[in-house]
């Protein structure tokens, strides 16, 4: 909770005024039944209509005060909560922008989105609730008891006894049913996942004619759900009758004690009427309080999830060297790497390799062999565990992340374009690029043609998720975007898998001929993509199995031959 003080501080005035207004509203509200009682006591009993009008006027003043302070409370509480949430959201978002890849991997994308959306909304609601309802409900409760006490201190004892009884009833019911409801939720989830599984697998079920088998399974889950619901709800059903009966008995006791006091002239008839009104207010407040606690327990979970993000230590720090990447030499020196510390096995093992500026390096190997991890270490998307990576002879850890990544462009395997126009997307690579450069890079990435076929050309809107582009088009735009960075090193991670071989050849031609000074690292599934590379690295189980040209590897690398045969078999 302490860390949220930072977000409260700038709006402290709202955070104070809101409960203050609410306090005034409650103070006014609890007066009303008292004055209604006085109308009976002073007006009706004495036949004094002037007194009645006078008391009515006082009540109207209180109501006016209550409504204005109530609206005021709403105003300040909304101001406070909206601003609070806005600032928290901003900080969480900024924090995520600073995340390293390790951090991003740790939270899944979905969970980060939930934290930024639902969870923040939850705590925003919690703030409003704390500022308003959390003042109002106890206020009405205590206010009613105080008013009862000023009317008749002895009868007020009924209130003092009633409140704990009501609380105990609620507590016991919640306590007894809580576990059952957790269990019920599990059963609901179970049933839903059963249904979802069947929907997803319907082809298989029908192909194997397992409909009856599935129905049998469902029947079990379904009737368990019914039984669990019954046991859980049976307990909670007791709550309302118990609360009602407690208040009813209290009403009868108040009436009885009132009559006794009336005979002893300790109380007036209007007071009894007022006391009964206060009793109903007590029940209402206790019920509200119980609801608030249930609600806030949900929000507290959310607030924990948000602080998890805010408290996370970002693992990568800038180096203190001001250098920029100038030539594009790369050296791996005995590098070993794994994604999380808890993993036993290294993803990369003892990698040492020297790559000269301007070279084209192909990397090939089966899924999970470490190709992508290898490439990710160059722009320091991850840090090595053992050994170091050098770019232009400088340890990547010594660059600022900004400078390093300006020099190294990566086309990630999971290519993502953002909503906006094609041009907007390409200009991610260079915000100041002119049309000429953009078109040139479109040429080089073999995107020029299909872009010019679009009615709006470079101003064509990329829809969310880029659903209006084919896989191959997306890949080519991603390459163009990276080329626009004019990097010294470019990494293509399986970036042409959806592009046909002829087009791929075109792109490679530009890479080889027009980017002579740029170091190119091409990760590929197909041998055709890298056949002309200056060096090909064959990776297997996190290690470099062989390095060489296509011809060399065909001669002396078994894995390479195997891949070659499986892909090119019938052709040669």
């Amino acid at each position: 909770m302490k860390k949220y003080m930072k977000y409260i501080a700038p709006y402290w005035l709202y955070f104070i005024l809101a409960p203050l207004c609410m306090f005034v509203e409650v103070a006014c509200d609890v007066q009303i039944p008292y004055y209604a009682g006085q109308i009976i006591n002073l007006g009706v009993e004495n036949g004094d209509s002037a007194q009645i009008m006078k008391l009515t006027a006082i009540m109207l003043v209180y109501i006016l005060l209550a409504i204005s302070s109530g609206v005021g409370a709403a105003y300040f509480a909304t101001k406070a909560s909206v601003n609070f949430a806005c600032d928290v959201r901003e900080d969480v978002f900024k924090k995520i922008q600073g995340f390293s890849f390790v951090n991003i991997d740790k939270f899944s994308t979905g969970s980060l989105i939930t934290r930024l959306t639902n969870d923040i909304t939850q705590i925003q609601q919690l703030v409003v609730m704390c500022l308003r309802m959390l003042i109002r409900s106890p206020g009405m409760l205590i206010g009613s008891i105080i008013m009862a006490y000023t009317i008749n201190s002895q009868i007020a004892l009924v209130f003092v006894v009633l409140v704990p009884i009501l609380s105990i009833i609620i507590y016991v019911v919640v306590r007894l049913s809580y576990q059952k409801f957790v269990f019920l939720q599990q059963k609901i989830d179970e049933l839903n996942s059963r249904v979802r599984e069947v929907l997803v697998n319907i082809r298989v079920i029908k192909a194997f004619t397992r409909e009856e088998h599935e129905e049998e399974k469902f029947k079990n889950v379904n009737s368990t759900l019914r039984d669990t619901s019954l046991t859980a709800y049976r307990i909670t059903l007791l709550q309302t009758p118990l609360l009602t009966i407690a208040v009813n008995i209290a009403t009868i006791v108040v009436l009885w004690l009132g009559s006794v006091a009336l005979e002893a002239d300790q109380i007036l008839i209007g007071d009894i009427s007022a006391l009964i009104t206060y009793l109903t207010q007590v029940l209402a407040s206790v019920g509200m309080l119980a609801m608030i606690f249930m609600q806030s327990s949900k929000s507290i979970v959310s607030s924990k999830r948000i602080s998890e993000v805010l408290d996370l230590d970002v693992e990568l720090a800038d180096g203190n060297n001001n250098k920029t990447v100038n030539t594009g030499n790369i050296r791996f020196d005995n590098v070993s790497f794994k994604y999380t510390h808890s993993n036993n096995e290294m993803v990369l093992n003892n990698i040492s390799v020297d790559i000269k500026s301007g070279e084209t390096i192909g990397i090939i190997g089966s899924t999970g062999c470490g190709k992508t991890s290898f490439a990710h270490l160059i722009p320091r998307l991850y840090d090595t565990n053992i050994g170091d990576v050098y770019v232009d002879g400088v340890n990547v850890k010594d660059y600022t992340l900004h400078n390093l990544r300006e020099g190294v462009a990566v086309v990630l395997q999971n290519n993502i374009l953002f909503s906006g126009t094609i041009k907007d997307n390409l200009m991610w690579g260079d915000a100041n690029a002119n049309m000429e450069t953009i078109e040139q890079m479109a040429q080089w990435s073999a995107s020029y043609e299909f872009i010019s076929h679009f009615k709006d050309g470079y101003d064509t809107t990329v829809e969310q998720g880029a659903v209006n582009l084919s896989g191959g088009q997306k890949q080519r735009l991603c390459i163009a975007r990276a080329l626009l960075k004019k990097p010294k090193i470019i990494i293509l991670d399986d970036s042409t898998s959806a592009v046909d071989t002829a087009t791929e050849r075109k792109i490679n031609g530009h890479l080889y001929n027009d980017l002579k000074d740029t170091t190119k690292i091409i990760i590929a599934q197909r041998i055709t993509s890298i056949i002309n590379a200056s060096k090909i690295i064959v990776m297997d189980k996190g290690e470099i199995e062989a390095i060489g040209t296509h011809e060399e590897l065909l001669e002396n690398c078994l894995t390479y031959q195997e891949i070659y045969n499986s892909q090119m078999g019938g052709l040669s």
Partner: protein
Amino acid sequence: MENQSENRDPGGKRPPNNSSGPGGMPMGGGPPGRMPMEKVKLKNSKETILRLWGYLGKRNFMLIAALILVFISSAFTILASYMIRPIINGLTEYAGTSTLITNLLIMLGIYLVAVISSYLQTRLMLEVAQNALEKIRYDLFDKMQKLPLKFFDSKHNGDLMSRFTNDIDAMSQMLSTTLAQLISGVTTLVATIAIMIYTNWFLTIIMLTISPLFNMFTRAVSKRSMNYYKGQQKAIGDLNGFIEERITGQKVIKVFNHEQQTIEQFNELNQNYREQSFKAQFISGTMGPIMGSLTQLSYTIVACIGGLLCVFRGFDIGGFTIFLNYSRSFSRPINDIFMQINTLFAALAGAERVFEVIDYPAEIADATDCVNVENIVGEVILKDVKFGYNPAIPVLKNISVTAKPSQKIAFVGSTGAGKTTITNLLNRFYDIQSGEILIDGVPITKYKKAFLRENIAMVLQDTHLFEGSIMENIRYGRLDAADSEVIAAAQTANAHEFIKKLEYGYDTILTNDGANLSQGQRQLLNIARAVISKAPILVLDEATSSVDTRTERHIELALDRLMQSRTTFIIAHRLSTVRNSDMIVVLERGEIIESGNHQQLLEQKGKYHSLYTGASKLD
């Protein structure tokens, strides 16, 4: 969970919540949910209600009993509060202790009747509701099993899922609380008005005039807040859309050093949302105090006029007191009724959607003149097959293919060429429009559907596994297979090795569609499942297209063993997989453009050749 917290308090009698707007908005009115409900249109509510009634079955008398109990409990609650009148009057007239005690005891009695009947009612409704829901869920599930594949292909899974969750939840709420609250609301309202008229008609008229006035006022305010809510909704939509897109592309942002720009864009949207949401939430936040104060106002008006009536017209103090109480609670049943009518309509709409599925025609029944054969050898002939999912738009035209027992036939072509459609026809997921499909010389429509499908094993591209152990998943292919047979099948499928290496071996529990296994491993399990089924006909639909080439080799070895002695149809994107087929059929726009074996097709130098050499690419 939403539904639960509502259910925890069945039977009405919620504490009057002075500070809450009509939809509970002041809780903060966050964007998700809690919007004023939209009007739902019902197609045939009468029929829907009758069907729901049918689901109560023998328990429908319980429902009637429950509804009578609601009536009793609400009427008695009002009656009990009326008892305050004679009691107070007795006090002012010094009627004596015995009258007081009698009156208090009567009051207690009435209270007890009200509470007990309310409790009994909720218990009854619980039984009624849960049993009916179980039945409805079962019927819905049962129907889903029997629906033709066409149904699933034309509907999103999410849509069907929501019928199972949201719609059934809405029905659950209606059965367990809405009905009771509606009746309780109406009873309370009528009983209150009756007692008020009986007590003092003049004050009643005043109450009946100001209450609707106040209601209109609050409605006007909440309408205004609706407009602001639309603005807020738009702003949150923009903001969340941006968040979703950028967080999904977070790694790209990092790679392009684009953090700063992203933060700036985010701030703009965030500030806009702050302004919009302030307006919406402030307006809805004022609903609480306004409604609360209006209640206080009507209380004060009653206090003033009632007091004057006592002075000038001899109105009794007891009657005055109960009027004061009613003036506080009078608006509650009205609000309740409005709210419950909304949920009632939502529930009926939900019921309609559920019944829509239940009423959907099931798969066509088997023909009456089905042949009875013991075994299928596996000769498959397609003769001039024509088919379209929409009969007007044929997907397959004039397809004729003959597969002799244990031959391998491959289909190659772009997405949409109709490859998968052929497999859908073989096992009669869909029926052809013209032409014939013969297995062992018998048209497939003459086989019992279950028999036909038992004899065709499928391995699909998406690996579909079920929650349960590996053993159970393989056994899915033949439920009576012994453990040893399962293991033998796994060995044939090349899966035994990796299964053995798992900590729990064959007892490893697969969750989440086998997320704890690699794509290749999942596929091997699918193959094992096909192996164990012993079906003489096998369909491999893109069985290896989502794994890399090296894993593919591993799987191919397994497939080779599986294909021995089975008539196999291979559908493939990647050409390396189909090379060894007895016949390769190249499809384009639903027609066969080339066929022959690998060598023949390469020599033709047609489409297949250009695909094979990579000159063109399938999409």
